[in-house]
Each structure stands twice: as C-alpha cells, then as structure tokens.
C-alpha cells in the first residue's frame, strides 16, 4: 500500500515516516515541529489526552501568522474599502486589493481581477449558476453592457444539459439542481467506480453538444479522490461547454495552477487553507466574468444607478455587492503568504507520506472498510471508512474520548454515501501540521471503539 519512496525518505517499521527526515534537494520538505509551533491550538488537551486534530477537510486550524495579521488589521487599519478618501480607508483598500493579488498569484491567475471574493465556495458556485439563470431570464443583462447582453454561452433552456458527478459536495449539486428547475435544463452526472473514481467511460455521451457547463470536484471531500481533468477539458472544448472545478479540497493541499488546468472557473474557500471563515474565492477567466450578468445587486457593484435602471462595474466588483469581508480577505492573504512560505509542493508531499502511512495502519484494523481509493496514488489525505456494525457517530464519539477529532456523517455528500451503500462514514483528514503519532492515536482509538462495541 506504500508508494515507492523517493530518495532520501527514511523508513521505520516498513512505513515511510513523513516530517521526521530532512528531505533531499529533490523532495521539498519542512520542519514539522516548527510548523506545529505556528498553530497555538495544537497544544490543546481533549478529554485529558493530547489532541489529534484530524478534521482539516472540514476546517483547518489557523497559524499565529494569520491571527496576527487579522488582529493588526482591526487594531491599526480598520475602515471600509473602495469609498473613503481618508488614510485608514486607503490602507484598508490597499490591504484588500493586496489580498486579491496574493490569491491570484497563488493560483497562477493571469490577473488579480479574475479573483472574485465571495463568502465561501458555495456562494461562488451559486454565483456561476445564477449567471446562467439571469442570462436566461434577462436579469442584469438588459441594463448591463449591451455588447455582452444575453451571452449565449450562459443561456439555458429545455434541451440544454448541465453535467456534475456523483462525488460532489451538496454545494456542487443543489445549485445546479435549482438552476435546472428554473430553466428547464437537464442535470446529468458521471457515476463512480467501485474503487472510488469517476467513471469516465461515459465521457463522450455525457459531455455533448447540448452540454453548457461541466462542474465537478478536483479533490473529493469524502473519498479523497484526486480527479483528472485533461480528457474532460478536451472534450468540453470540442463541444463548447464551460468547465468549473470545485477546488475547495485541492487549493489548500497542492499547487493549483489555473493556466495549467485550462478550465473556465474554479472555486475554493479560505477556512480550509489556514484562513478565516467567511471568505471564499471564485476565479474565472476575465472574458467570461465580463460576459456574465451579476448575481447579487447592491452597493459597490454598480457603475451608475438611476431610479429606472443600473449599469454595472467591471469584474470583480460587479460580483461583490455590499461591504465585502475585508478582514477575512486580509486573513486569507496572510494564509496564502504562510502556505507559500512552507511551499505547496512540500505540503503535498508531507500529506502523501502521511496518507500512505495511514492507509497502511487502517488496513490492519479488523472490520474496517475504506470508502474511496485504497492506494495513496491519485488521492488526497482525506480518508473515509466504515466499521462493521458500528455507526460512525459512535466511532467519532469514542475517538473524541481519546482526543482524536474526526468528522462523522455523510460529509454533505449524501449521494456518494448512497452509491457505496453506507449511511455515513468516519473521516480522518490530514494537513501540513499532522504527524504519524496522530495517525497512531487514531489506530489506537479504533481499537477502543471495537472494545466498547464488541
């Protein structure tokens, strides 16, 4: 179950040990003990045990560097953005704009104004779904720039199709279901293989001349699968469909380069990548963002307003109605700085080794079944599993008594649970600060689970 180790990786008890070894020059790494010192919360005790926080796919912990920047913003620079002429307003606006530029650089966007701040990834997906809806019903298009009014790429109706997959988070299902209900378009989806991968054998059938957009997850929040994109993007280009990737579980854990992915939209959320809650990101090709009608109306998103009608600002402002989450954006900028200083490639490698170690350890637990890929290839450090005759709620409760914090339930991906015939799973998920000792604590905790419910 363990991948072939790269040169320089030491092994203990037959398993790769991440974080312990200073890696060689061809394998990026970091000092795990130092990283852990950056996260004050990691010193907590839970029920008298050292806490093992294995729930970063749910939300990540925040390093001091992010907390400090947010505190300083509120203590020194707090003001509203894009409207004040005073010094504080200028500082806050500069900080907000700088955060946008940092996020843009982090995902290799060609320009900062391709980054739209939202409150989370769900809002980003809804923004795109409502662009279709509004383009179809005329909302926003009538008073928008006439040359882009009613852009056909965003017009949906009966006979048109939207394509998703069976491993989506509810946030990448429900907005499209609602869109299809509003417009009469048809929602279709890729099924999954028993191994926890998207079944691509239906690609040419599912993505066809009727397809207007394909939206799917780059890294699954429940299965941990890392999905390929090349063939899908190629097919979508052939038939003229747009492609959106939900990168909520990808951007925090691996280098994501929108130019390389060559898609049309991606979205992700700040709180899973060491940033605060309340800030998410929609990245879109600038030309598309210009063509799209607005989503939410209000202050800051307009050009001129009369009592009869309004015209709209250029993107990204067109999509940022009202006072934005300023401190949260600044915090996300700090999170991006932090992750960049550690290096995303190093984080990916750390999690890969930890995942291999964990898959190995979990395979030895009697009655445990992994839901999702069982090999550390094409998968992330998010591992879902079920235990014979023991409900995930009970697993999670006993693990908590041991200080091990995991998520239980359907992980907002109920259709995926149904596909694999389980009502819910227990999910352990790793990040840059997790250790093999914490994986050991998980394995030991599962022993206690088995004893309590024997």
């Amino acid at each position, binding site marked *: 179950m363990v991948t072939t180790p790269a040169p320089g990786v030491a092994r203990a008890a037959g398993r790769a040990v991440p974080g312990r070894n200073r890696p060689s020059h061809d394998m990026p790494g970091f000092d795990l003990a130092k990283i852990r010192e950056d996260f004050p919360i990691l010193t907590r005790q839970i029920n008298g045990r050292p806490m093992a926080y294995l729930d970063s796919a749910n939300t990540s912990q925040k390093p001091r560097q992010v907390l400090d920047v947010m505190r300083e913003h509120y203590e020194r620079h707090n003001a509203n953005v894009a409207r004040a002429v005073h010094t504080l307003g200028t500082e806050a606006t500069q900080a907000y704009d700088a955060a946008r530029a940092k996020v843009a650089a982090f995902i290799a966007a060609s320009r900062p104004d391709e980054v739209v701040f939202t409150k989370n990834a769900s809002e980003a997906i809804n923004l795109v779904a409502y662009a279709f809806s509004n383009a179809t019903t005329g909302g926003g298009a009538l008073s928008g720039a006439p040359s882009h009014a009613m852009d056909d790429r965003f017009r949906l109706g009966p006979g048109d199709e939207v394509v998703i997959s069976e491993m989506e988070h509810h946030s990448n299902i429900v907005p499209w279901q609602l869109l299809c209900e509003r417009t009469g378009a048809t929602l279709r989806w890729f099924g999954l293989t028993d191994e926890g991968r998207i079944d691509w054998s239906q690609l040419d059938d599912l993505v066809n001349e009727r397809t207007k957009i394909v939206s799917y997850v780059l890294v699954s929040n429940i299965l941990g699968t890392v999905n390929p994109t090349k063939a899908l993007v190629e097919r979508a280009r052939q038939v003229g469909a747009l492609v959106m990737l939900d990168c909520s579980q990808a951007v925090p854990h691996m280098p994501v380069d929108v130019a390389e992915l060559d898609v049309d939209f991606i979205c992700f959320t700040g709180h899973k990548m060491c940033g605060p809650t309340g800030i998410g990101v929609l990245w879109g090709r600038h030309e598309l963002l210009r063509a799209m009608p607005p989503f939410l109306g209000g202050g800051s998103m307009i050009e001129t307003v009369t009592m009869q009608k309004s015209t709209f600002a250029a993107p990204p402002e067109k999509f940022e109605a009202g006072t934005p989450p300023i401190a949260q954006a600044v915090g996300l900028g700090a999170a991006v700085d932090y992750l960049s200083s550690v290096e995303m490639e190093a984080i990916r490698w750390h999690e890969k080794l930890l995942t291999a170690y964990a898959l190995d350890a979990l395979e030895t637990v009697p009655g445990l079944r992994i839901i999702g890929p069982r090999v550390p290839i094409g998968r992330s450090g998010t591992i879902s599993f079920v235990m014979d005759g023991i*409900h995930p*709620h009970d697993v999670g*409760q*006993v693990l908590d008594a041991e200080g091990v914090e995991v998520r239980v339930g359907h992980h907002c991906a109920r259709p995926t649970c149904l596909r694999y015939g389980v009502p819910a799973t227990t999910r352990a998920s790793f990040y840059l600060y997790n250790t093999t000792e914490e994986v050991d604590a998980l394995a030991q905790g599962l022993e206690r689970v088995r004893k309590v419910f024997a």
Partner: protein
Amino acid sequence: MQLDTLYQEIILDHYKRPKGRGLREPYDAEAHHVNPTCGDEITLRVRLDGGADPRVVDVSYEGMGCSISQAAASVLHELLRDKSLAEALTVHDAYTEMIGSRGQGQPDGELLEDAVAFAGVSKYPGRVKCALLPWMAFKDAVARAAD
C-alpha cells in the same frame, strides 16, 4: 468526559438486541424522521385501540443510525407500548425534558425505567438529536393518528 456516562450498558444492550424492531400492520399512523446533519433515519408506526381513552397497542419501527438513536427507539417501544396514550405522553414529556437538561435533570426512574440510561446523553449536545429522533417521530405519528 467519561464515555460510560454516555454508553450505558442498557443502551448498548438495546442497540445490540433491539426490542420490537420491524414495521408491523395494522397501524393508524406512520412518521418518517431524519436527522439531516448525520443522515440517521427512522420510520415509526403507532397503533391505538381507538377508545375514548386510547391505549398504545403497538409501536413498530425500522431505521438506521447510531447506537443512541437505535437504542432510543427500542426503549421507546418497550416503555410506551401497552400504556394509555395519556400516560405515554407523560413519559414522553419526562424523557424530552431529561434529554434537554444538559446533565442537570433529576430523572424520575419509576416513570422512565430503562430510559433513565439516556440521562448521560444530555451532557453531549452533539448527541441530543440522536436520542430524540425516534421520540419525535412517535409524537408526530400520534398527532397524525388523532387527525
């Protein structure tokens, strides 16, 4: 927190060997309740004898969920079946009050019998919904039966 205040022997026993499980005919009303945060589900049927002071002739159920929600259904079956509806609702009130007590309640052991084992659940806010799931389905089914 002490795990065995939550996982009392009585609860684990009802979970492993549930009483009265399975959906039975005839019945007067059925309720299907889900806990949307975890996906636990229960379908519960009640049969009343239809007198002026009706009795709960049967409570049958089928569901999937954690030990707490499934044991709560089993205990409910044992406790409320063969009681007058008025008595059953008194027990129901005492049970829901205990579960909502955040560990502060003084449950009436004579009234609640095996169900007092769930007193510990009230200290775990994340599990309160589990303990209430079948009991809320019961109340719903009874209300429908009365319509």
